[in-house]
């Protein structure tokens, strides 16, 4: 793994509009998220459930120098939220694929319960709806990611995005309303 200063440089480059820097950052953040999640679930913390807020803040603390400016910070959290979403979507997709072939393998084992497929499928539906939202209003899709996948509070979001609380509230409410309506129509 590249060291911290290097990651900070990548982040700054990306903030300055360098897409290559973003592409290099993505896998680093993805892996770090996964690693921290695994550690969070391991032995000493057993019984805990994953908290996206804690995960994202820890990733930030581990990868980024504290003294970066707010634009870089906003970019970083957006990236974390995006990677968190991707992590969960990838997992849900592989679970779905495994089940498709694996359903029948449960057979001779006594009393194997139907695995709860609902949550994986629902997550993929949300992912799909978010993709559609991003097609005509990418910023609102990003805000949703920050709130639900990175678990940021309203105040944190306001600080990270630099949006006024009234603007943020208005945008979030519309994005949520559109998503809720779309999910309802899909169900």
């Amino acid at each position, binding site marked *: 793994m590249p060291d911290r200063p290097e990651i900070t440089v990548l982040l700054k480059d990306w903030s300055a509009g360098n897409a290559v820097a973003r592409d290099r950052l993505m896998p680093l953040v993805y892996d770090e998220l996964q690693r921290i*999640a*695994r550690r*969070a*679930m*391991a032995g000493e913390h*057993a019984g*805990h*459930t*994953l908290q*996206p807020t804690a995960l994202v803040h820890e990733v930030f603390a581990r990868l980024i120098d504290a003294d970066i400016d707010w634009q870089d910070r906003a970019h970083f959290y957006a990236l974390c939220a995006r990677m968190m979403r991707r*992590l*969960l979507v990838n*997992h*849900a997709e*592989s*679970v779905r694929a*495994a*089940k*498709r*072939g*694996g*359903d*029948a*393998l*449960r*057979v*001779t*084992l*006594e*009393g*194997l*319960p139907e*695995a*709860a497929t*609902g*949550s*994986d499928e*629902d*997550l993929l*539906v*949300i992912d799909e709806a978010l993709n559609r939202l991003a*097609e*005509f*209003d990418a910023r609102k899709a990003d805000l*949703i990611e920050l709130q*639900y*996948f990175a678990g940021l509070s309203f105040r944190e979001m306001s600080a990270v995005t630099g949006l006024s609380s009234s603007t943020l509230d*208005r945008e979030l*409410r*519309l994005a*949520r*309303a*559109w*998503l*809720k*309506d779309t*999910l*309802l129509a899909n*169900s």
Partner: protein
Amino acid sequence: MTPELWQRIEAAFAQALELVPEQRPPYLDALAVRDPEAAAQVRRLIAADAADDQRLRQPIGRALETFGEELDDPWIDRRLGAYRITRRIATGGMGAVFLAERVDAQFEQQVAIKLVGTQTLAADAQARFRAERQILAGMQHPFIAHLLDGGTTEDGAAYLVMEYVVGEPIDAYCTAHHLPVDATLRLFKKVCAAVAYAHRNLVVHRDLKPGNILVDAQGDPKLLDFGIAKLISDTPDTAEQTVQRLTPDYASPEQILGEPVTTVSDVYALGVLLYKLLSGQRPYELAGLRPAEVERLVVETGPIRPSVASRGSDAGEALPAELDALVLKAMNPEPEQRYASVLALSEDIDRYLSGQPLQARAGGWWYPARKFLHRHTAAVGLAVTLFIGALVAAGYHNKTLTAERDEARFEASRAQAVTDFLIDLFRQANPNESQGEDISAREILDTGATQLDEHLSDQPRIRAELRRSIGTVYAYLGLYQAAATQFRDAVALHEDLDDPAGLGRSLSGLGEALLDLGQLDEAALIHERALNLRRQTFGDVSIPVAYSLSELGYVRFSAGDYVASDALGREALTILEQSGATDDDYYSNLLHSLAQSLQIQDRLTEAEQFFRRSLEWDLDHHGERHTNSLTSLHDLASVLVQLERFVEAEPLFLKVAAIETDMLGPDYPQHNLTLNSLGQLYQKMERLDDAERYLRDAVEHARRVRGAEHPHTAYLIVGLVNLLNERARFDEAQSLVDEALAIYAATVPDDYPHLATARIAQARTLIGLSRLPAAETAARQALAVCAAALPAGHWLAERAQALVDETVAAQSAGAH
């Protein structure tokens, strides 16, 4: 969503939210006039805004949870042998299933790992597990998921590594693809092939069911978990445990009862599977029942016939009743009455697909004729007539057996009871209720059979007689299982009534039905019981005793025991003669059966004598223009051909042909067989012009009556091709043989035995046309069919081999 529209929505949404809720509807109404498109969306968004966000929050939360659990799963990333576990697929009380990949990753291979039990296996159990595993690992079949590996973990739990199959359970596949009946049967045959392969390797699946049979993207089945049920539980379960562990719908009665499990237990499960695939329904709803209830339902009640069950579903295609017999034979609760092997089941499906009579309904020589009858629309009306006739006749025998004092009273009540019963049945079969579809005799019979007890609860004698009558009609319709049930009920009623004559008749009917079901041993026992009963009731020299003897004889004949069969037949004949009962058709039929038996045993001179006696009797009693006389004439002529007395045979065949056309009309389906017999006779007599005329007539007749696409037509065409080959008219022969082969290709499987005959004829034609390489190919194809369809050393195979040798030799001679 266009950006412009979204902007308008965004503005209106923000504005609406700034209003107090009461002011929003008028605002939206006004907006609807200005911008209806945006207004409709904003209305919905305002409504959605009021709802909480659980729909978003919950799935993400749960996804995080399962993601976390997996990270927490000690099995993930663990190594078992050469594999690394990547994902848990399922967990249960007795183990778990994982997805895994090879550690060395020389090639990308995903596998499924089944962890069997979480407890340590005892040393002897481990040894047994290893031994079984090796047998299973040895099985290599394209339709069986391969067991790749196995072992025990450090903590002593056993695991199996299996091919990871991606596919759809076979029942879901058939539904999703709207598979027609024939295609379903062909897919099912592949399943049979896999199970038969396993049986040849002495492995019984024990838990066949849709979830165990996946269909892959190519439409091929893959069977999972072969023999795993045994591997997992080698100790005998209690019935209670078995029902819990197995899917009771597919478990055979012997499995449910904890009795020994054999290959025919898989036949049962395949029967249930086919039932499900064809009808869309499961034969029983067993979930949650106790073993005793399951037993009662499966063993005593039996399923609704699949063709009836399928009417309730949207299965689309109507299911031919013939398949009922096939499915129900496979899932007979008595193991020995099922198909003896998966192969036998598969072969009967072949017969169905190629339009031949099924083994499931065979046992009587008259079945093919009946099958023909079924194709005719008049059949239903005929069956109804028969049914009423049978009901009315039900009381007939009683006259002679009932004390005169009771007779009048009984007769009157019987007539009234039957009339009421009939009227009621037809009223229920009201066309308004069946929505204009034809009411089948079946439906009327089924209703009658179920309502009999209720309607005539106080008249057991009439009930018994009617049961037997309904049984007789079921048997006539080829529904032998239903017939047997009716006869069994009649037997029980007669036993209670202490009515030996009625009991004898019902036993006799039951024996016949069992014979038709192919249950020879049981049929023999029933007939023997009837025979003993009749001896006691009527004396040794009596007509009923003769009937029982000949019926028993026919069972022995069907079992291939010709010596016993002949002795019984001759004894029956003597009794009939001593009783002066030689004026009934029964006497002549017996003569004819004896003749056929002798013919099969190649005792041709004796056969000729019996055929002549039968013919003489038929002519005396019916004259020439009667189907019995025609059959006797035809069969006598065929024996004469076998004896090479062609000149005597010729006038007999000619007479049969003439009477058939005259009496039975030009479309009598058996007529082309007579024409074919004549053609072959003339070919043997080397009167080739005559031979050609009759063989051509036979083909034309079959094309018209059976259809130009029927395998029977193809069979007759090949006969004509052989003659044309003999006459060296190879160009004509070639187009005909191509036609026959095209018919076969469209109608029968590749290993249909007559295909060998057709290929041999084709090879001869091509030799005649000097097309030696093509001739060699045809001969080799004939050889392949022989290898697949006939026992080794069959004369057809020898003939095909000779042709291969001939063409090869001719080609090498030509090359020099």
